């Protein structure tokens, strides 16, 4: 049984310019111990869909219009704010993109990590302090005892993200939500953090939702991938299946847009022409149709996800893998 089951989630933002259709009826699940990557470009709804699940959407202007999120037999959308607060940071923890803005600059690292421990685990200050040292050691911060009372500005970017991860892990969460956690970091530091998360995942056995735009990171960390475009899921599959046999023209376009470090000889990139649609004024049919090379008449109707192989779903009227073989 799935650990987390999202059904028909729809989130909109009511702005002065119009209604932004950020997430449009997405359904996916997360199995126990699994790493699920949600991939897409800016504005595709990957962050908003996960923030909606954690009920962190500012309301107004945002509004979760519909959807069910089942976790441990309960629908998170129906919980009271207090009940939700006991899950957030406890059973589901989050690591954000920018470690500088997500840490409080006027509190020490110890104060920030201890807060979750005293709040959710009922520890006293001394116990929380000891546990904080353990956690900082777990995320490999050197001289953890001495760095405990430092303020965030005394940490480097990589160390701040480690502290964020320590905070997220403090209550032994079942699900870690990581929203572009390495985008603000340098490659060598990114490699450190990814290695750390993989190691912790194998030790602790938590499930991870990893949101990113970087197809390289996905290839290294995910078990299963969900590709989003304009607030819709357009394809989902196990990671190897997706890279070996992408079935949606957008997924193919994304893969063709990134140069590979290990390329044998130089090939021209094959970008996707045009721009993503305006979420206030979405086309009625397939949202990708205006940019698609494989467009047919039927694309003016909205395609639903259909299963094309075991655990592989795609929302496209055209069978591009057949075209590829011809």
């Amino acid at each position, binding site marked *: 049984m799935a650990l987390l089951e999202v059904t028909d989630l729809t989130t909109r933002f009511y702005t002065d310019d119009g209604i932004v259709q950020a997430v449009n009826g997405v359904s996916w699940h997360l199995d126990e111990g699994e790493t699920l990557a949600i991939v897409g*470009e*800016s504005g595709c709804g990957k962050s908003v869909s996960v923030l909606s699940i954690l009920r962190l959407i500012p309301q107004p202007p945002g509004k979760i219009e519909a959807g069910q999120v089942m976790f441990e037999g309960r629908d998170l959308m129906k919980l009271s704010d207090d009940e939700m607060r006991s899950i957030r940071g406890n059973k589901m923890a989050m690591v954000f993109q920018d470690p500088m803005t997500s840490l409080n600059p006027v509190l020490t690292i110890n104060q920030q990590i201890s807060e979750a421990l005293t709040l959710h685990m009922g520890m006293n200050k001394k116990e929380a302090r000891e546990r904080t040292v353990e956690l900082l050691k777990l995320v490999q911060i*050197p001289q953890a005892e001495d760095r405990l009372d430092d303020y965030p500005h005394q940490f*480097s*970017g*990589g*160390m701040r993200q480690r502290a964020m991860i320590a905070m997220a892990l403090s209550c032994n969460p079942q699900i870690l939500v990581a929203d572009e956690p390495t985008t603000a970091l*340098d*490659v*060598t*530091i*990114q*490699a*450190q953090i*990814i*290695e750390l998360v993989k190691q912790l995942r194998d030790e602790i056995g938590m499930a991870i939702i990893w949101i990113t*735009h*970087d*197809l*390289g*990171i*996905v*290839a*290294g960390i*995910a078990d299963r991938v969900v590709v989003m475009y304009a607030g819709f899921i357009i394809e989902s599959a196990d*990671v*190897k299946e997706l*890279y*070996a046999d992408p079935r949606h023209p957008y997924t193919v*376009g*994304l*893969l*063709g*847009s*990134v*140069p*590979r*470090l*290990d*390329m044998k000889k*130089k090939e*021209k*990139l*094959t*970008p*996707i*022409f045009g*721009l*993503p649609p305006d979420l206030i004024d979405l086309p009625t049919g397939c949202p990708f149709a205006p940019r698609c090379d494989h467009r047919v008449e039927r694309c003016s109707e909205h395609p639903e996800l259909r299963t094309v192989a075991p655990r592989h779903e795609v929302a496209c009227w055209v069978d591009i893998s057949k075209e590829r073989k011809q």
Partner: protein
Amino acid sequence: MSAENNVLLEVKNLKMYFPIKRGVFQRRVGDVKAVDDLSFFIRRGETFGLVGESGSGKTTVGRCILQLYRPTGGSVVFEGKDLTQMKGSQLRAMRREMQMIFQDPYASLNPRMTVGSIVGEPLEVHGIARGKQKRERVQELLKVVGLNPYFVNRYPHEFSGGQRQRIGVARALALNPSLIVADEPISALDVSIQAQIINMLEDLQSELGLTYLFIAHDLSVVRHISDRIAVMYLGKIFEIADKDELYRNPLQPYTQSLLSAVPIPDPVVEETRKRIILVGDLPSPANPPIGCNFVTRCPVKMDVCEGQEPEFKEVSTDHWVACWRVN
């Protein structure tokens, strides 16, 4: 470094120190050595990639070349003339030949100017075209970068990130420069738009015979677009080589770890890849280590690395390295 006659730009022993001032009298108490004694050259018509992590000094190098910063020491020889010795109108005339594309297409275009006046401004400043002639040239430039020429009267906020970057490229091309310094031109853009801009830069290069200094942190992109690549770390160049040579035969331990840290979009390859994970962070350029700048994080350091700086040497044709393990 080289006496070849197809060299467009030669940088020799370039240094850029920013003073650290303290106290009431703003006494100089030290220097941030953003760029410390580096030399390289760029051949006519090639793309020279400069990679490094944040704080490595790669942007400072670009700015020193264009004399947007006046270097503390060393020379920047462009078309046989040393730019560091030039001033005023002489320098302004040289700037026609070299233009810059910036990282952030939102910050690098004046929001109160129309596209026409942004792209046309260099033409006016350098007294090349006015009025109707200017307007025609601007429209032609917009066409070259794949924008609709009727956009001249629009403002930057009406455009997407990728389109704005195209406007920035049109402005850089306005004066027919021979060298373009592109400082992280695609890192603020989405993946599918990045590929559009990379392809456009490549097409423009072959049409107009441009020379690029391409500054970026993403090694996959740099390998894709460049002919030769220089790897920077803490104000120094550690290695310069042809892009394929650098990928197949990296000699400096930092280059090796950088290559191993770049994710490859292929789960089958990633499964079996071995990574060299560096410990720690980049040291402060105000207080660099003694000896080799990489000594604090190097996985294979020796005693000599902590005492003396390795010399930057050519170990095989066109392959330059600074490392005691190699020398």
